[in-house]
């Protein structure tokens, strides 16, 4: 095998741990935290560097204008398959197209850069097939667990990671084991009140959005400083509940966790009996290193997790590790929907209203839940809908300026005309955006394979991602966008618009290794253990078989805490059995 040939050429140092975790984001953090606290020796192998809190600033050039937190696409491209104008699938390396599906290659992963809009999935998301029935062309299924089984872990995330918010009762409010959030809501802009008033007039069900951002200090983490630069930026106060700030930093204090940054795992080796023995990785000097462990947990984010399994072929798993049933990489899902916005011009408002509207940093934090279930003849009755989150346009000034380069006809504007447009945009209005979240139905046209030709800087095949979507996604997205536009209209916004498309949002990606009770149709069992490999667990979003209509991070965190508990129980069971003790 290729990997073994490589190994023979180099002298390899092997280290041994109880648990080896590949990746360090939201799927990895809870396992590292719980297992190291329980006294087990844990190693985290993270492909990217280790940015500490002190290294994060609000510098637009570093955070969003250059690829500092993600790999450069020349070194680590991915191949994207999209349909061309003739309706044929066409594959292109994203080194040439620039469509970047990396979300954060560093300790803590993309959780460092999330905005922390935290939604639980709702009970019906766990039984999409039985509740709403099959949709032709969609691989809809029920989850092997219910909302009730995951609920205690949602509650745990609120407490351990830190979620701020306020529970209000409404038709789609999920059942909770605790009365309210452990942290009060973050400070809000006056526009939140305007939304509430308009929603009330329209009879919309609207609720505050919980945020994985501390509204008051939590031990060594400070509360939010309302910097006005949250999403896409690392948090300089540790208020944001990234895996790094909320979990890994605490886990390190146990002395049982070792984090190896700049360590890119490329192969998992099995022992010929369906068990992983070793993880092979490249260190920062491109030397091959090896980790031995009893249990391996993969949480490299959906695309890279499937890729690693597909790369880890051997004679027992000729199609890739845990892939004798051909399910690895299948049913990749994103979040369907799109965005929209409306502008509030200062000349239309009172001085006091302008003063309050312009206050930077404080949040909008409002979400429409009214159509989480649609009951409309356009859908022949009841159908799964989604949510709409409201937020201000990001403070990134360069991005705002770039959007002023074109006039309404799409012609480039420059010179004095551009300067006037810029000045007006920056000083005479504020834009309120909305983001529509609907189910991205799993289909046979959205999956991950290995590209046969394109390789990364280490010489390994890169992921090829087919980005097909179901047209039903657009129908739901447009339905929700219209409702959001109506709300903006009621608020008095101008230049209201929305855009719903089948474009895959790279930062909202899950699936590829769905969990389920049928070993022929799923990669993982209900505890996220591989059906085929005894000591392989996957705890990032790969397990998710249907996506719900909300952002994923809270569910990934919650599930990872659930799996961590399973792991601890199983290790204890095995330890006691081997020592002759009874449980």
């Amino acid at each position, binding site marked *: 095998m290729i990997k073994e040939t490589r190994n023979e050429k180099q002298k390899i140092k092997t280290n041994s741990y109880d648990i080896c975790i590949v990746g360090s984001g939201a799927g990895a953090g809870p396992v590292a935290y719980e297992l190291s606290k329980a006294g087990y020796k844990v190693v985290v192998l993270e492909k990217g560097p280790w940015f500490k809190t002190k290294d994060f600033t609000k*510098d637009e050039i*570093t955070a969003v204008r250059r*690829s500092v937190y993600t790999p450069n696409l020349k070194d680590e491209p991915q191949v994207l398959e999209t349909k061309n104008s003739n309706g044929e699938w066409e594959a292109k390396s994203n080194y*040439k197209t620039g469509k970047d599906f990396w979300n954060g290659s560093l300790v803590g992963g993309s959780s460092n850069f999330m905005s922390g809009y935290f939604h639980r999935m709702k009970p019906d998301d766990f039984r999409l097939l039985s509740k709403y029935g099959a949709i032709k062309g969609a691989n809809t299924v029920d989850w092997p667990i219910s909302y009730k089984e995951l609920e205690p872990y949602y509650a745990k995330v609120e407490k351990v990671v830190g979620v701020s918010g306020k529970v209000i009762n409404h038709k789609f409010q999920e059942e909770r084991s605790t009365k309210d959030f452990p942290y009060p809501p973050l400070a809000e802009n006056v526009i939140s009140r305007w939304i509430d008033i308009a929603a009330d007039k329209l009879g919309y069900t609207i609720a505050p959005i919980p945020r994985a951002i501390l509204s008051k200090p939590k031990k060594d983490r400070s509360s939010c400083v309302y*910097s006005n630069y949250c999403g896409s930026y690392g948090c300089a106060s540790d208020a944001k509940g990234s895996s790094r700030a909320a979990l890994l930093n605490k886990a390190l204090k146990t002395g049982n966790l070792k984090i190896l940054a700049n360590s890119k795992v490329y192969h998992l080796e099995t022992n010929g009996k369906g068990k992983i023995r070793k993880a092979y990785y490249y260190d920062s000097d491109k030397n091959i290193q090896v980790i031995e462990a009893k249990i391996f947990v993969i949480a490299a984010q959906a695309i890279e997790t499937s890729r690693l399994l597909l790369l880890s072929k051997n004679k027992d798993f000729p199609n890739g590790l845990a892939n004798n049933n051909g399910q690895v990489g299948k049913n990749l899902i994103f979040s369907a929907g799109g965005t929209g916005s409306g502008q509030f011009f200062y000349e239309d408002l009172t001085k006091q209203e302008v003063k309050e509207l312009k206050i930077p940093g404080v949040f909008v934090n409002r979400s429409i839940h009214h159509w989480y279930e649609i009951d409309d003849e356009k859908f022949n009755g009841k159908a799964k809908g989604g949510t709409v989150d409201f937020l201000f346009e990001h403070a990134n000034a360069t991005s705002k*300026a770039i959007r002023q380069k074109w006039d309404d006809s799409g012609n480039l504007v*420059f010179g004095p005309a551009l300067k006037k447009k810029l000045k007006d945009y*920056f000083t005479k209005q504020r834009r309120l955006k909305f983001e529509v979240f609907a189910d991205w139905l799993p289909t046979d046209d959205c999956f991950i394979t290995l590209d046969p030709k394109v390789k990364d800087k280490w010489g390994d095949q890169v992921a090829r991602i087919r980005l097909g979507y179901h047209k039903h996604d657009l129908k739901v997205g447009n339905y929700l966008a219209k409702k959001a536009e109506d709300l903006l209209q009621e608020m008095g916004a101008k230049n209201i618009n929305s855009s719903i498309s089948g474009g895959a949002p790279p930062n909202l990606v899950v699936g590829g290794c769905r969990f389920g009770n049928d070993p022929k149709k799923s990669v993982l069992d209900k505890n996220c253990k591989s059906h085929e490999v005894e000591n392989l667990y996957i705890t990032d979003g790969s397990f998710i078989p249907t996506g719900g209509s909300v952002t994923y991070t809270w569910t990934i965190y919650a599930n990872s805490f659930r799996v961590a508990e399973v792991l601890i129980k199983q290790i204890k069971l095995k330890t006691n059995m081997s020592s002759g003790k009874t449980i």
Partner: protein
Amino acid sequence: MSENKFMKNIQDKVIPQSIKEFTTGQVSRRNFIRSSLALGALSQMTLLQSCINNKSDYSTVLNKKQLTIAIAVQNILFPKDENSPGALDFNADKYLLWVLSDERIDPEENQYVINGLKWLDETAEEEKNTHFLKLSKREQVQLVHTISKTNWGENWLSVVLTLIFEAMISDPIYGFNTNEIGRKWLKHDAGYPRPTKETRYDEIFKTVQQNN
């Protein structure tokens, strides 16, 4: 100039795919710049690659003529007037040189910026039978308007504008937007913490390597 000749030259003006898609708004998070080690084997990289190793001398990235054309174009795209700063007030020219000398930026994309300067001058010769810098200010503006209606010209000017915007918004620590003149004009509040000499873009990679 005959139409056919002009068409032929347009076809010769290769726009990197990433920039094409960027300017049509299909790329969200990423700007035209993509980090990259300067290891490309493209033949047209000779000038740039020979210069980027000498970071202390930005002037080697562009020759005097190229730089003068670049400055003229920046002034047309973002002119100074009595009430507002122009591109040179926040040192967009020096910023351009800094970007072109950045080893992490894809050489193909930086070369495209340089090629555009040449293409503009060629268009001046084709259209006006003289070099761009020999044209009157009014003629230069007219020519920039003319190329803005072409595929390559619109793309290229759009990229040059993006770099002007980056300079205008950049933190003073980079040495271009001194006294935050661009930010103040737009009444833009930057976030805190600001970058430091350890955390600015061109030092952050070195800084985080020390964390391991």
